[in-house]
Each structure stands twice: as structure tokens, then as C-alpha cells.
């Protein structure tokens, strides 16, 4: 993204009032970008929240209503699935800690409004893992991946079990036992996060503490992907920090926790991006704290250029050249962070071989 040329979706997310003054051409672009970034429902909520909804053109209101109804459908299904999970696991003494979308929804976070969410991520204690999986399989969930290598890959190297899908409802459940792959540079143990989990009112349902919720989405965004198409996660980061950060006592707890878990570097990046693109308010002292973990200048300059470009969604007709390159470089970076070099080479070789063999 060149200076002075601000992406229209990012502008609308950051300052919803601009939506009251767009022409037809701008709307066409904005609505399309929002759909591609899975943020239409978010935009609808922002428009309603900021009071501009009623001034919008009828066609925009129809599209927003459509996006809203779609997201409400997702949310209803998520609530139901969580309830079904709880009915199986809670009586057997297995506590479910919701992550990501399901957690935002059940914990009543602001970022849940209009948010799409098509599967449920849960964290269970390492000791309960095998039992949780067996119980779910006994109650109508099935393993999605059947290939032996995939299964092995998930179980040995990933931070979650192979996804389970309910036979009738089709909803996917990811059971995590830790937050990032055990092979990853950053290690976020599930049990460390569970020690601070808070109950969600309903028996047997938990969510991470506020600071851990924020740390989780940040580490997930920065370490577990290439940033392309991850504006949605930045929106979560922004919304969580705005909501939790409105109370001053959040920030010291958040920074202390990031230090304890050794993830100040991703926090540094996330705060920088979130402030730059979405104008997230962050106290000076917090920024100074995060600055201590900033990378050496060549990396910093490169990331400052690549990361916003990768996060900025592009219309398919005119993809920015920078975004493509940024995506590739960041993809390599994400895998670099995810596993040691030799293991990465072996993994990619196996994937490539499988793609070549016609039998699969």
C-alpha cells in the first residue's frame, strides 16, 4: 500500500462514518472487498453501531442485512454445536475452553458482532485429550482426515487433533491441546493458558482470560500464517484491545503475560499493525514496552512494508504487485517459524510428492 492511498475497506472499518459519503462505484468496491475478506457482517454492525445505517442506499442496506442474517445463522449454529459438545463432555468431567469465534460469541465480546464463524475450536487439558476425542467419536463426530500421513502429522506435530465433523450437522470441531504446534518457535502450552481460564456461566464451559484471548489471536495471526487474507484477525485484535483496553488494568496484565509467555515480538508487530491500519488506541507505556522486542532494522523495515500490504485486501481485477510478493515472503516466514528447517523440507517434499501421484 502506497502512502496516501488508503484501502477503502480499511478506511470504513476504522472510521465507519465514511460510509455515509460513498458513491456507487466506491460502494461496489467496498462491498466486494468486504465479502472477499469475510467482513461484510462486521461492516454491517459498524454501520448500525455508528448510526449511519439508515442513511445508506437501499441496495447497501439489503446487502448488509443479507450479511447480517448470514452471520446470525453462523452464530446460532455455533451456539447449538457448543451446547451439544457440552452435553457430551461436561457430564464426564471434561472442561471445554472455547477459543476464537465460539469464545467471542459465548463470552459476549464486541468482536463477535457480525462475525462469520463456521467451526468450533476448543482447548482441553492434555490429560483429557484422548478421552474427549473418544467421547465425541462415540457420540456422532467423525475424524475428517483419513489419510495415515495426515493423521500422523496432526497428532505428532500439530497443536490440534485431526478435525472432527459431526455426522449429521456437518459442523467441524477442532480440539486443541496447545495453541501453537509444539515444533513452533513460540510455544504456548495449553495447560498454561488453562490455568487462567474463566468460567462462562454455563456449567463446564470456559474461555481464556482476557489477556490470554488477546495474546492468542495475536500469536495466531503473526506466527501461524502468511498474513494474506488475515485482515479479519487484525479486526479481532483491534476489537479485543479496544474492549478490554478500555479498562486501564488490562494493559499491565496483558504485557506481563506476553512477557511470561515469551511472545512480545508478535505483540510488537500486532500493536504496530493494528494502530497503523485500524487506529487502535494503545497507551504510550505499552508501546514502549513492546518496542523492546522490536527486530533489527532490516527486518523491521521489510516487515513494515510487507505486513500492511499483505493484510490489505485487493480486488481480484487489480491485485497489487506488492501484495503478491509480500504474501510469498510471509508464507515462507510463517513456515520458518512453524517448524525447524529439516522438518519443513521433509514436510513440503512429501506434500509435493503426493500432489504428483495421480492416485490421490
Amino acid at each position: 500500500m502506497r502512502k496516501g492511498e488508503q484501502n477503502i475497506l480499511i478506511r470504513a472499518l476504522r472510521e465507519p462514518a465514511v460510509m455515509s459519503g460513498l458513491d456507487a462505484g466506491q460502494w461496489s468496491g467496498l462491498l466486494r472487498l468486504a465479502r472477499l475478506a469475510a467482513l461484510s457482517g462486521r461492516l454491517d454492525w459498524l454501520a448500525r453501531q455508528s448510526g449511519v445505517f439508515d442513511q445508506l442506499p437501499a441496495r447497501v442496506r439489503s446487502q448488509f442485512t443479507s450479511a447480517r442474517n448470514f452471520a446470525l445463522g453462523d452464530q446460532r449454529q455455533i451456539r447449538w454445536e457448543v451446547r451439544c459438545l457440552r452435553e457430551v463432555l461436561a457430564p464426564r468431567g471434561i472442561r471445554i475452553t472455547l477459543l476464537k469465534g465460539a469464545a467471542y460469541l459465548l463470552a459476549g465480546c464486541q468482536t463477535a458482532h457480525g462475525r462469520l464463524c463456521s467451526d468450533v475450536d476448543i482447548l482441553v487439558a492434555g490429560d483429557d485429550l484422548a478421552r474427549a476425542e473418544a467421547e465425541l467419536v462415540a457420540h456422532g463426530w467423525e475424524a475428517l482426515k483419513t489419510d495415515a500421513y495426515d493423521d500422523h502429522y496432526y497428532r505428532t506435530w500439530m497443536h490440534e487433533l485431526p478435525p472432527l465433523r459431526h455426522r449429521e450437522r456437518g459442523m467441524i470441531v477442532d480440539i486443541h491441546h496447545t495453541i501453537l504446534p509444539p515444533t513452533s518457535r513460540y510455544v504456548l502450552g495449553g495447560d498454561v493458558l488453562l490455568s487462567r481460564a474463566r468460567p462462562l456461566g454455563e456449567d463446564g464451559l470456559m474461555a481464556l482470560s482476557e489477556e490470554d484471548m488477546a495474546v492468542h489471536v495475536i500469536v495466531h495471526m503473526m506466527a501461524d500464517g502468511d498474513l494474506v487474507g488475515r485482515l479479519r484477525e487484525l479486526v479481532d485484535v483491534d476489537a479485543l484491545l479496544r474492549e478490554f483496553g478500555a479498562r486501564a488494568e488490562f494493559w499491565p496484565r496483558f504485557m506481563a503475560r506476553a512477557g511470561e509467555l515469551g511472545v512480545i515480538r508478535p505483540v510488537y508487530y500486532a500493536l504496530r499493525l493494528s494502530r497503523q491500519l485500524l487506529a487502535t488506541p494503545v497507551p504510550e507505556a505499552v508501546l514502549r514496552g513492546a518496542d523492546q522486542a522490536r527486530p533489527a532494522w532490516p527486518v523491521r523495515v521489510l516487515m513494515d512494508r510487507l505486513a500492511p500490504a499483505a493484510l490489505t485486501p485487493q480486488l481480484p481485477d487489480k491485485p497489487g504487485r506488492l501484495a503478491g510478493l509480500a504474501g510469498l515472503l510471509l508464507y515462507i516466514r510463517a513456515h520458518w517459524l512453524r517448524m525447524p528447517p529439516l522438518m519443513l523440507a521433509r514436510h513440503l517434499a512429501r506434500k509435493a510428492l503426493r500432489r504428483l501421484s495421480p492416485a490421490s
Partner: protein
Amino acid sequence: MRIRDIPRADLDRYLSTGGLDLCLGPFVMRLKLAYGALREAFADVYGACLAAPPGEEITDFHVRIDAPSRWRHWFRPQAIADIDSPAPFVPLPARLAPLMLEQGMNWCVATRVFNLLTFHASVVERGGKAILFPGRSGAGKSTLCAGLAVNGWRLFCDEFGLLDMENGEVRAYPRPISLKNRSIGLIRAMAPAGAISASYPDTPKGTIAFLKPPEQSVARDQEPAELGAFIVPVFDPGEPAAISRLSKTEALGYMTLYSMNYDRLGAPAFTCLTDLVERRPAFALRYPDLEVAMAQVDDIHRSL
């Protein structure tokens, strides 16, 4: 501007470069069409419809028809729809590109419209009362719908029943009707000259031709109507004609079965449908041929 009034060179330029916004019924679709023959066919079938150059209207959906890969533009050319998201399209030979365009447009409506309650259904209207025929393609409803559309009924849509949940009104979306095999001759015999497009032989469903959206239907495409009745048509040449009244429960069952977004919309959709089923009659119509069916629909319409 009506598509047929746009100078052909301009139309060609829009469709092959930045796109053209087709404004029909509740939707504005940005179309980009590779292949001159496809643009030709589009201009012929959609001639009565309104369109605008990019930037004048707010676009709902983007549909691009092009070769699946660069070399497929020249060597055994094919056409596939790109609608900005994954969709289960299978490339067709380029000569069948108009069918791919219809598929692409249909997929957008079927998977992205959640401000309206949508159904697999044909809808026609007369005297302010819309008749909705739920059913999947192949149930014979297209032939019936086309027959009615060329015999004084206003075509709302052959593929989609679009229901406004706020007031229970039906929205018009008069797209071309895809006629298959024997239906083509049947409808051609009733329709005015030039009402039917060129035929496309050897499609996966046999020969296909399109009944163009009738002028008066397109001219009134922004005019909704009240729902008069639900009719479930069953084509059965071996049995005598029969009309039977469906119970409210049966009607609700059919409507939820044939809705495309009922499960996602939840409570508002349930409320809207139960209310309609409460107030409007539903019928099953068994018919051995088109003439009989049209007379039966007339009878039901008169009784409303």
C-alpha cells in the same frame, strides 16, 4: 439503458473489459464475458433488460465468464464462471457459454442472498396475485412457467421464488427460462416470433433454448406482488389431471424443503412461512400435458 439500445460496439467493449452492470429485479450483477458469440447471445436474450456502465449502480455480484486457462481460449475453447468464491462449476465447451453464464448468475443468488427468503421455485403473477411453484429443476415447472409466461401471465422468475420476510411479498426477477428438448417446440408454438433464443444442442441435459424474459415482465421488474397460492406441480402423462388441496402442514413441509436459505435464516423465516401458509392455500397439481395444467392454474387463480 435497455441493452438492445446500447450500440453494439459499446456493449462489446463493456462486456469484454471493465464489465457491464445488469440491473434486473432485486440484483445488480457485474458481467464480464469473454467470447464474442457469448456477448452476442447475451445481447439477444437480455435485450429488454436495463444495464449500466460500471460506477453508476451499486453492484451486488460479480460474474465473469472466461476460459478456465489461457490456452483453453484457443484450443478446444471452454467457458467457466468466476464468481469471486469457490463454486462447483464444470467447464463447458465455449459454444455453451450462455449456459455457464446462467449457472454463474444462479449460483450467486442461491448462495449469497439472505435478506430474502429464497426458494427453488417458478413464480408467475396475474391480477396482483403471484403463484409460486416450488420444485427442483426437472419437475416440469419450467415448461409450465414458460407456457403461462407466454399466455398473459407476468413472469417473476423460473428459478427463484424471492420472498420479502418483512411483508410477505414476492419479488420479480424475470430471467430467461431454460427450456429443454421437447419443451422448446411446445413453447415456440405458443410464443410470439423471436421470443425464443437459438438452440444449444448436445448439452449435458440435451438440447436447450431460452425463452427470453418477456418485455412486459422486464418493464415491471421492480413491482412486487402479494402471494396468491402455492402450487406443487407434478407432471405425469400416465395419469388423469387432478388438483388436490394440501394441508397447511404439507405446504409448510414443501416450502421448507424447497427453500434455499430457510435453515440459515431461522426464526424470521419460520414466522414468515407459517404466516403465509396460514393465509394462503396450497395445492398439488397433477397434469398430463401443458394445456391442461394451464387451465388448472387458471381455475385455482380464479378461486383466490
